[in-house]
């Protein structure tokens, strides 16, 4: 199975944007990158769960990553993308402001996380990488996928 | 390319033999899951060789062997036996089986027996 590689060598990552920051997720987890598409609301679930979409016949839950990180919402636009992840056979979509870069990050360049990056709590982050004047924050996928307790409207 | 009819009630066993034979470029003429089918398929397919399990429902391998032998005396039949079936193997040899192989099958054993019978 691909995916769980914790190689201490190079990490191939996808770079995406949320507000003013750039984030990175290992390519191994990414199944595809989709344009924004209709999402069906699910009643009574956490507010950051946008709903489910029809991804080529598979019902795929979609998470609004801004809401997940407590960043203020913004209208979806042409640049909005859904990163489709595949974690242990379950597909899951992350709505992000934009995604357009694939990079190799040397593991040695990953530095410990400063306490808060762009408002995202430390626990969701695996580290930061400085590369050619750009700063990327590497996400901690498992933590993000753990549900929060605050149910919407309940 | 010699053709082989595989007879065994366990499809697992048939698969094992089939795999061994296919890797050695044999042609699988057919598969039978009991003695009755074996006799019918033999008459229909006239394979060069039969691997015949001894213990099977409906009709056991020895009876099937005898029936095949009585209508086709030249039939090349190799018995597939398990430990503890010595007496039955000997019965089968007397009834005209050309050789026998013992479970668990080992590819080289199976091929050795088959090559000797056909060679």
């Amino acid at each position: 199975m691909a995916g769980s590689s914790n190689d201490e060598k190079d990490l191939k990552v996808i770079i995406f944007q949320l507000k003013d920051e750039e984030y990175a997720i290992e390519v191994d987890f990414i199944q595809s990158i989709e344009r924004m598409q209709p999402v069906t609301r699910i009643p009574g679930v956490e507010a950051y769960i946008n709903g489910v979409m029809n991804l080529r016949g598979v019902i795929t839950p979609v998470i609004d990553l801004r809401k997940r990180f407590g960043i203020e919402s913004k209208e979806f636009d042409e640049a909005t993308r859904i990163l489709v992840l595949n974690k242990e056979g379950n597909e899951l979509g992350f709505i992000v402001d934009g995604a357009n870069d694939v990079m190799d990050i040397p593991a040695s360049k990953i530095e410990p996380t400063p306490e808060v990056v762009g408002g995202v709590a430390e626990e969701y982050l695996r580290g930061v990488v400085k590369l050619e004047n750009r700063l990327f924050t590497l996400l901690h996928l498992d933590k993000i996928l753990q549900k929060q307790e605050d149910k919407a409207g309940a | 390319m010699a053709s082989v009819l595989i007879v065994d009630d366990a499809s697992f066993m048939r698969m094992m033999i089939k795999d061994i034979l296919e890797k050695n470029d044999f042609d699988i003429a057919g598969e039978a899951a009991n003695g009755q089918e074996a006799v019918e398929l033999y008459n229909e397919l006239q394979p060069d060789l039969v691997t015949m399990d001894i213990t099977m429902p409906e009709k056991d391998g020895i009876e099937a062997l005898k029936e095949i032998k009585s209508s086709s005396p030249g039939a090349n039949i190799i018995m597939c036996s398990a430990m503890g079936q010595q007496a039955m193997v000997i019965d089968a040899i007397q009834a005209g089986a050309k050789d026998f192989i013992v479970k668990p099958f080992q590819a080289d054993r199976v091929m050795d027996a088959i090559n000797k019978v056909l060679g």
Partner: protein
Amino acid sequence: MSQSEYLEVFIDESQEHLQAINDNLLQLEKEPGDLSIVGEIFRSAHTLKGMGATMGFEDLAHLTHNMENVLDLIRNDQLEVTSHVMDIVFEAVDDLEEIIVDISNGGDGKQDVDAVVKHLETLQGLEPAASGEEAATAEAVQPANTINENYDEYEWTVLTQSQEQGYQAYQIQISLDEKTMLKAARVYMVFEVLEQIGDVIKSTPPADELEEEKFDFTFVVTLLTTTEADEIKQRILKVSEISSVYIKTVNIDPYKENTTKEKNQVEEKANSSPAKKQEKRKKKESSPGKKGTELNKTIRVNIDRLDVLMNLFEELVIDRGRLEQISSELNNTELNETVERMSRISGDLQEIILNMRMMPVDQVFNRFPRMVRSLSKELGKKVNLEIIGAETELDRTIIDEIGDPLVHLIRNSIDHGIEHPDVRKSSGKSEEGTVELRAYHSGNHVFIEIEDDGAGINKEKVINKALENGVVTEEDLEKMTDQQMYGLLFASGFSTAEEVTDVSGRGVGLDVVRSTFESLGGVVTVDSELGKGSLFSIQLPLTLSIIDVMLVEVAEEKYAVPLTAIIETAIVNKKEVYSAHNQKVIDFRGKVVPLVFLHEIFQVPAKDKDETDNDFYSLVIINKGEKVAGLVVDSLIGQHDIVLKSLGNYLSDVFAISGATILGDGQVALIVDTNALIK
């Protein structure tokens, strides 16, 4: 073919054989005299042994080997089928099952089978330490390449005489491959070859020892023949598993003078080759089984492939919906006809695919006889389990789920239903209680019923307990029918077990059983007569993956309500709605029906346009057993065949939503779990 594919078939087939062994053992226990059953069991054990050994699962092979030995004794009337013997064999089967489970879970199939093997060996009258048939004692062997055969006077006479008649004498040392397993049979084949070309006048070790495999791997024969040495060697090497053949000409000149005895004695001796004596020994084993395997007309298909097929077809159904929608918009005759035909064909295809996924409930039922046997022993009760309609088919997703809840219900019937034999006797019943497990088709449903002729349910006790635990109020009870009162057994936190036995009352109540069945779209009901027995009835849908629904609209959202839960749809005037106990209700066909407002339950964002001008409610009347409710929606869209899809693990417990489906326009609609909406 990969190792894993072998393994899959191996596991499948092993399970089948274990099941056959279980069934036949139970049968044998009923008819201990029927040795044809023993034959069947023997055959299954034997096949398992061969398969296990092939895959290198030694404990499996070892255990089945010992089982086989015991069965052989039974078959030959050397061992009686007592309850003790059965217990040990069952124990062995349990171990085998554990091994197979371990293997199917990716384990190595290693299991400590010593205890059971010891029991089996004791049954065989063996000292537990002695190992099986392979314990061949090694005779002294000649060192390779040096044949040193000694002949007595009589043998020399024979040798001399035959040489005068033109025969040559050879000493032939034959070595079998060290891995040869049936040595005697190999030796027999060698002798057959030799006897075609001459006469064997002596063998070392002697024939009877060869026959008993009392030799290592090498033996020496003396052959009188006119065939050349090389030719003899070639012929012997034609036999498999012969590793070497050495031939030496016997020089008999020194004894040429001694020629008195006749030659026919030689022949006599030669004839006593090994195994001829064995001919008469036990003949073929199993009798023609009534069931017989039906391998000839079926092929084995991996269930995953069927799932893939189903998934692909589901996509087709979605596109079919889309195509139907497009063609109705375009209104082109040719397109319409084509789409119509396609729809019809895909309808047929749907039926076939759904049928392929159907499996007989026997898959689940077949483990119950064993369970009932051990359970009744454990509880000291006599129980006869009758299974009716085991061939009834259900979708495999349902089959996979109903096993555990059924186990619970059957345990419940035996534990709480069937009385102890003395109690039964004193109340004029036969000592042996009967539990009947029935499955049958009816319309779009399959019913599974468990009926016992035990003590029945004490209504008063149920009521008291229910009041005690706050499950119901006195008020509620007044309106309840008997069945509804029995149904309280399935309410959360209910248990009537007075003594907590090892069997039930472990905290898992019947409410779990109910919710499992309900999650499958099933309904559980109970009926009972005190002193006569109880009947638990479960109604299940035939299939789960493609279902008929009513599509409804709530504001701008679409929801699907399974047709199986719908009694009818209705439109009522808002004036007909009353309030009772803070609950909006309507009087519907003389019954008070509570209303459930979907836009409230699902917090549906209101539509932009004003709706107050509407004087009517659109209702979908749903039921769950006896209870009824009216779902209030904005509009009814219509009836559709839809493909049920799971929301996945991430969204596992969404209230009142059982899944989702993809509509013709590609949108996702949620499927309403009506059971959650009726209290």
